[in-house]
């Protein structure tokens, strides 16, 4: 209820602000909605959202899988941590724009280069979070797995990953929003389609309504993913905590 009220307040503020700023600078919610509907009718909206979403999914999955593996290795093996730490610091402090521009220069204006650039931007954050989780792993359970000779992959799946789940979930949650923001920049700079490309075009035409229409649509998509996918998964993996309490 409070969330709905807060959301209504947001739209009210927007509407009032649009009265002062004028439709050129800040069109009201009703205008933006009209454009969203029009774009949806032609199918253009869904096509662009779909393309962007596919890129987000690829980059996100790549960053999560590789980042989890590296984070786990760094958290568990001191040598890997020492060797990897300087690389990690470089990666953490590399501006997203630099990574994207270099990826496009080295890899050409290709899909692979774009997705890799996004994944590399998300990677260090996942590594740091999962490394933190790996350092907190229960040594006693490792010993249990060792004594009972639980095969490695099985121990990873049943003993290690459930302990990392909260950390992976945290990385995923911040990752989703980070990744889609960077995907838009990649699309703006070097892809011929997607929400970022559309916003770039709208920028050149100074079409604020279209910019807001695409931005808002994608925010809704991300919110849907968050409520329909991320949160249920989180609840599922932490079910045992709730029951134990």
């Amino acid at each position, binding site marked *: 209820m409070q969330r709905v009220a807060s959301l209504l307040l947001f739209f009210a503020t927007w509407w009032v602000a649009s009265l002062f700023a004028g439709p050129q600078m800040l069109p009201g919610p009703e205008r933006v909605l009209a454009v969203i509907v029009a774009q949806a009718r032609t199918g253009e909206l869904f096509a662009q959202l779909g393309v962007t979403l596919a890129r987000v999914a690829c980059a996100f999955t790549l960053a999560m899988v590789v980042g989890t593996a590296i984070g786990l290795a760094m958290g568990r093996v001191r040598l890997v941590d020492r060797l990897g730490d300087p690389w990690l610091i470089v990666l953490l402090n590399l501006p997203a724009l630099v990574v994207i521009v270099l990826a496009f220069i080295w890899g050409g204006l290709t899909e692979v280069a774009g997705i890799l650039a996004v994944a590399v931007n998300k990677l260090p954050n996942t590594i740091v979070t999962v490394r933190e989780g790996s350092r907190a792993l229960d040594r*006693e*359970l490792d*010993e*249990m797995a*060792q*004594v*009972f*000779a*639980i095969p490695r992959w*099985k121990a990873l799946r*049943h*003993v290690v990953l*459930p302990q990392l789940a909260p950390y992976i979930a945290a990385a995923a949650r911040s990752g989703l929003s980070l990744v889609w923001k960077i995907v838009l920049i990649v699309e703006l700079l070097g892809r011929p389609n997607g929400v970022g490309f559309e916003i770039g075009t709208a920028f050149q035409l100074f079409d604020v309504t279209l910019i807001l229409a695409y931005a808002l649509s994608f925010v809704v998509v991300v919110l849907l993913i968050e409520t329909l996918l991320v949160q249920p998964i989180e609840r599922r*993996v932490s079910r*045992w*905590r709730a*029951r*134990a*309490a």
Partner: protein
Amino acid sequence: MLRDVAFTIGPREVVALVGPSGCGKTTLLRIVAGLDTEFEGAVTRPAAGRLGMVFQEPRLLAWRTVEENVRLVAPDATPDALALLFDALELAEHRGHHPGELSLGLARRAALARAFAVDPALLLLDEPFVSLDLPLARRLRQQLIALIDTHSTATLIVTHDLEEAVSLADRVLLLSPRPARILADIAIGTPRKLRSEAEMQRTMAAIGKRLDAIGSNGRGPA
């Protein structure tokens, strides 16, 4: 910590390690389990068959049910064998519970079930009933005796509880304070099931006397 400790456990034999607090009983057990590798000497574990272990803490996976915890280490155990095991330990109605929902006593039983589920060739128990109240500890001990007698496993149990040692073991190894050596190897001839209260009291008194002589009552905290 340990010095010149050498012993063998026969198949189906139960050996109890008893000694003063902090003498290295648990370390010895960890060496036998292969968890501590920084030692000089050799451990020969059974060539075939698996290791089962019950730690001082139950060490169950909190995110898996009791049954899943057991099945994880013993994927080949038949449903019948598991049912027998859960019945023997009065765990049948807790199969679907998560460890966080269990009392310490029940969690200890689940840990026992897990150790027996692998049908171990060597079973290692590290003070399996510590910090349980006496009646409960006795009851679990009876269940443990029944399980040991129906499984063909060699057993090494670390305990500071003489009653536990004397009622479970075929042999009691008495360790000295650090660096621990084996002071005495006391065989108890009578089978576990047939031991009378009086006989156990006599054996306990005899071992207690030897422990007093080395400056520990052997009943202190581990």
